[in-house]
C-alpha cells in the first residue's frame, strides 16, 4: 500500500503529463482526479494500517550505500493524509477552474506527480529519499508555476522559483552526501549521531524551499501559477515540506548548538517582515503568499523555541485555512477577471461565499472557532516567560489581523451587481475545507497539545482585533523590497560569467595567433628555397664547412 501511495501519483502523473497530446484533456483530468481520491484512500489505509518499511538500494559505490527507504509512522501518516487530501481538493477544484483549458489534463497530471514527490519526502526514512522527493517537487513547482506559458510573469516566476530553491537543494545535497558518507542511512541515525553540518545545511535548504528569510520573493512571484497549484504548494507540499523536515530532524537540530536560536531569528524575522509585506499588498494572491511566509515563519519559530508539536499543529491548521483561502480567492479573481484587491470588490458578497471565506479568514487570524486559534495560542503559550518572544507574538497577532482585514474588506463587501456563476467543482473543496477548519478546533488527533488556559488568550485576541481595525482603516498599499537576493545572485552570476568569457576570448585570440609564429618560421624556410641556385650552393658550402670544422676541430 505504501508503494501504491507514493509511486502511483509519481508514475501516473508523469506518464499523464508526457501523454498529454494523445489522451483527451478532460478524460485525463478525470483520471487524475480519480487517482487522487484513490491515493487519499490509500494514505488513510497506510496511516491506519500496520507499519511498513520499504528498502531499496538505489546505488552502491564501493562502500558507500545509497538506499531509498520508505516507512510509515504517525507523523508521516497524518502528513500524507493531509497532502493527499489537499491534492484531491485541488484536483476537484481544477476540474472547474480549468474546464475550458485544453491543457487541463496535463495540469492535473503534473499536480498529481507533484503530490507524489511530496509523499516521497513525507514517507522517506532517510535524507536521500527525502532529497529525491524534494528535487521532484522542485521540478513539479517549475512546471506548475510556469503553466501559463505565454505570460512573461509565469516564465520569470518559474525560473526564479527553481533557481532560488536550487540554492537550498545544493545544501540539502551536501547534507545527504555527508550522512551517506558516514553510513547514516536512517533518520534515527542522523538524529542520534548526525553532525552539526547536516543540521545547518538542512536549515539553509528549508530556508530556500520554504521561502524564509531573504528567499521569500520566489514564493510571491510564484503566484503567477494557477490557483489550484498555489493552494497545493502553500498548504501541504513544497513550502510545508520545510517545517515538516525540521520537525522530523528536531532531535538533531536540538543538539546542535546555535541552530535553534538561528531558527528563532529566521522564523521570527520572516514572519514579521512577511506580515508587514502582506499589509501592503495590492493583489489577493500576493497577500496570501506573504501570509504563507509569515505563517511558515511562525512554524520555524515554534521549532526554534523547542516545540515541534506546536509547529505541527500550525502546519495542519494552516494547510486547511490557507487552501480554503486560495480556493476562495481563486473564485473571486475568476469572477473579477483580475487579481487586484480593488477590482475584486464584492466578488464574494453573497452569504454562502462570504461565510466560507470568513471561516478561512478567522483561521488565518487565529480566532476561534478554528484550528488556527489553537495553534496560535499554543505558540503564545510556549513563548511565556521570555519578553522578546511574547512581544514577537503580539506583533505577529497584530499584523495577522491587519492583513486579513485588508483581504476581507473588499471581498466581503456588498456586491455591485450580478456575478458570474461558479461551478460546483469549485465549490465542493471550499465547503469541505471550511468544515475541516472548524472541526479542527475541537478535533485534532494528530497532535497532543499542552493544556493551555484559554482564558489567557485575551491579549492576543485583543491585538488581533486591533490589527484588524488597523487593516480596515489602512488603505495605502506599499511594496516591500523582497527580490534582493535573487537580483544580487543573478548580477553576480552574470558578472562572473562575463569575466570568464572575457578570459576565454583573450586566450582564444592568443592561441589563434600561434599560427603567426609558425608562419614567421616558414619565411626562413622559404628564404632558403628561394629558387636561386647560387644561394643553394652557398648554403651547402657553409653547412659542409660547419660539418667539417665541427668534426675535425679537436
Amino acid at each position: 500500500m505504501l508503494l501504491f501511495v507514493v509511486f502511483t501519483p509519481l508514475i501516473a502523473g508523469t506518464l499523464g503529463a508526457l501523454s498529454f497530446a494523445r489522451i483527451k484533456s478532460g478524460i485525463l483530468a478525470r483520471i487524475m482526479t480519480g487517482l487522487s481520491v484513490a491515493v487519499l484512500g490509500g494514505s488513510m489505509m497506510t496511516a491506519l494500517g500496520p507499519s511498513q518499511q520499504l528498502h531499496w538500494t538505489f546505488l552502491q559505490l564501493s562502500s558507500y550505500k545509497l538506499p531509498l527507504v520508505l516507512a510509515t509512522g504517525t507523523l508521516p501518516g497524518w502528513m500524507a493524509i493531509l497532502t493527499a487530501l489537499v491534492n484531491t481538493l485541488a484536483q476537484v477544484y481544477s476540474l472547474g477552474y480549468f474546464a475550458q483549458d485544453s491543457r487541463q489534463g496535463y495540469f492535473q497530471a503534473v499536480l498529481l506527480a507533484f503530490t507524489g514527490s511530496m509523499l516521497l519526502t513525507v514517507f522517506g526514512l532517510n535524507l536521500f529519499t527525502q532529497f529525491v522527493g524534494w528535487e521532484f517537487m522542485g521540478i513539479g513547482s517549475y512546471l506548475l508555476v510556469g503553466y501559463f506559458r505565454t505570460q512573461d510573469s509565469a516564465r520569470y516566476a518559474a525560473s526564479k522559483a527553481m533557481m532560488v530553491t536550487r540554492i537550498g537543494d545544493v545544501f540539502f545535497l551536501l547534507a545527504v552526501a555527508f550522512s551517506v558518507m558516514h553510513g547514516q542511512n536512517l533518520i534515527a541515525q542522523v538524529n542520534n549521531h548526525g553532525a552539526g553540518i547536516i543540521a545547518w545545511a538542512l536549515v539553509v535548504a528549508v530556508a530556500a524551499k520554504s521561502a524564509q528569510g531573504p528567499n521569500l520573493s520566489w514564493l510571491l512571484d510564484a503566484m503567477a501559477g494557477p490557483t489550484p497549484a498555489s493552494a497545493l504548494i502553500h498548504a501541504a507540499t513544497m513550502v510545508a515540506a520545510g517545517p515538516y523536515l525540521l520537525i522530523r530532524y528536531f532531535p538533531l537540530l536540538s543538539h546542535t548548538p546555535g541552530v535553534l536560536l538561528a531558527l528563532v531569528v529566521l522564523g521570527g524575522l520572516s514572519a514579521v517582515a512577511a506580515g508587514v509585506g502582506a499589509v501592503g499588498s495590492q493583489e489577493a494572491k500576493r497577500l496570501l503568499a506573504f501570509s504563507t511566509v509569515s505563517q511558515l515563519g511562525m512554524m520555524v519559530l515554534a521549532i526554534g523555541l523547542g516545540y515541534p508539536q506546536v509547529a505541527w499543529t500550525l502546519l495542519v491548521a494552516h494547510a486547511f485555512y490557507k487552501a480554503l483561502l486560495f480556493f476562495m480567492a481563486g473564485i473571486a479573481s475568476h469572477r473579477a477577471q483580475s487579481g487586484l484587491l480593488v477590482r475584486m470588490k464584492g466578488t464574494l458578497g453573497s452569504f454562502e461565499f462570504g461565510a466560507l471565506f470568513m471561516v478561512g479568514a478567522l483561521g488565518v487570524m487565529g480566532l476561534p472557532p478554528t484550528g488556527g486559534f489553537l495553534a496560535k495560542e499554543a505558540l503564545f503559550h510556549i513563548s511565556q516567560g521570555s519578553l522578546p518572544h511574547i512581544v514577537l507574538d503580539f506583533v505577529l497577532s497584530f499584523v495577522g489581523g491587519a492583513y486579513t482585514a485588508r483581504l476581507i474588506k473588499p471581498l466581503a463587501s456588498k456586491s455591485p451587481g450580478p456575478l458570474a456563476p461558479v461551478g460546483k467543482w469549485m465549490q465542493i473543496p471550499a465547503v469541505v475545507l471550511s468544515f475541516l477548519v472548524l472541526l479542527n478546533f475541537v478535533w485534532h488527533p494528530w497532535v497532543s497539545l499542552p493544556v493551555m488556559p484559554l482564558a489567557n488568550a485575551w491579549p492576543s485576541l485583543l491585538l488581533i482585533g486591533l490589527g484588524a481595525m488597523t487593516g480596515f482603516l489602512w488603505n495605502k498599499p506599499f511594496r516591500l523590497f523582497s527580490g534582493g537576493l535573487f537580483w544580487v545572485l543573478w548580477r553576480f552570476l552574470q558578472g562572473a560569467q562575463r569575466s570568464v568569457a572575457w578570459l576565454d576570448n583573450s586566450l582564444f585570440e592568443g592561441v589563434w595567433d600561434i599560427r603567426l609564429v609558425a608562419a614567421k618560421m616558414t619565411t626562413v624556410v622559404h628564404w632558403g628555397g628561394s629558387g636561386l641556385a647560387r644561394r643553394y650552393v652557398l648554403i651547402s658550402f657553409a653547412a659542409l664547412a660547419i660539418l667539417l670544422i665541427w668534426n675535425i676541430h679537436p
Partner: protein
Amino acid sequence: MALGGIEMIAWLALGLECVIAMTLELIPLKRNISRWILAGGIVLLMILFPFAGSLPHLYERLIYAPPVHVVYQELVLATALGLTGILSREGNPVASTLLMLSLAGGLVAVSANNWVVLFLGIETLNIGLYGLVGHTSRQRAGDEALLKFFILGSIFTAFEVAGIGLIGGTQGSLQIMMFRVPNPAEIAGLSLMLAALLFKMGSFPFHLWAPDTYEGSPWQTTTIIATLPKIVAGSLIIRLMATGVFSVIPRLPEILEVVALGTMIVGALGAWRQPRLKRMLAYAAISQVGFVILPLSAGHIGAAGVYLVSYILGSLAVFSAGQSLGGQDNPTRLDLVGAFKTKNRWPAVALVLALAGFAGFPLTVGMAAKLYSVEAVMGEPAIIWLGAVLVTGFTFFYYFRWIFPFFASGDVKITKNAGVGAIAISQISAFLIVVLGIWSYPMIWLTQHLTL
C-alpha cells in the same frame, strides 16, 4: 656457395639488360613493350640476386658477395620495379633505358665494397637521373630544375671525389672498412662522403635543390627522383652505419640529430600552406627523410630501414597518384575536390591513404614506422624525441589539409587520367601501405636482416 656454378649470373644479367634496353631504342616497337621488357628483367634480377648474385673471389674486394647485402639490393630492385610502372608514353623508350642505367648504378652502389665502386655506382645513378630530368623536360621550369639538380649534384660529386681521395690517401686502400685509429683527414673524407649521401637523401641542410627540381619536373621524373636515389643513399647510409664505417666520425650522433631534426622541421614548415600539390609533397618528403635519419643518430638500424621502406612506398603512392590526378599539371587543393566521383577515384583513394600513412595515421605502415623511428631515440635527450613527436603533430596540419579536399563537397574539377601503369602502382603501394601497417611480419623480418 653451393650453387657456385651460377655465381655472377645476376650481375651478367644486369649488364645484359642494360644492353637490351639500349638496343630497344633502335627498334621501332610499340612504346609500352620496352616497359614490359624492363619490368620483366627487373623481376628476373630480383629472383636471381638472392642465390646468383655472388661474385668470384677476385671481385669481392670491389663488391660484397650476397647474400650479405641482398636485402638492400632487393629494396633497390623493388623500387625500380615500381618505377617502371609509372613511365609514361612520352619519353619512352629512352626513359626506360635511363631508368635501367640508374638502377644499375644504384645496385652497384649499394653492393660496393670499395669507395671507388661506390662512387661509380652513384655517378651512374646520377647520370641516369640527369638524363631523365632533361629528357622529359618540356618547359623552361624543367630546364631550370635540371640545371639546379645538375649543378648541385656535380658539386657533391666533387666532394665525393675529394672524400675518396682523403680516405684512400690515409688508409692506403680504397676498401670500405672500419678505421681503428682515426685521423683528421680520414674524418674529413668520411664526413664528405656522409654529406654527399645526405645530399642524395635530400636532407637538411643540403635539401635546397629538392623542391625546385620536384616541382619543375614532370610527375614521372619526380617520382623517380623522389624514390630511387633516396633508397640507394638511404640504404648506403644504413649499411655504412651498420658496418660501423661512419662511426669513426667523432660527433656523428650529434650531427645526425641536428640533421634529422633540421630536416623534419624544415620540411614540415615548408610543406605547410603550400598551394600546389607537388611542392607540398617535395617538402613533405624532406620532412619524412628526417625520420629515416633520426634513428640512425641513436644507432638504430632497423628503425631507419623500416622508415625508409615506408617512405619509399608512400612516395611511390603519392607521386604516381599525383601523376594520375594531375597529368601534366600541378594541382591545387581546389582541383582535387570531388575526385572520388571521377574515373580517378582509385588514385584519389591511394593518395589519401598515402598521405594518411605519411601523417602516421593508425593502421598504416607510416604509423608503425613513426613508432619505430621515435622509439629508437627515446634514450636520447628529451629535446630530440619531444621535437620529433611535435613535428609529427605539426605534419598533421598539411597532410590533413590535403586529405580534406577529397571529402569536400563541390564540383568535380579534375578528370585527367594517366596511364594504367601509374594507377596500378598507386594502388599496389597504397595496398602495401595498409597491409604492412597491419601485418607486421615483413617489417620485423626486415629489421632483423638489415644488420646481418
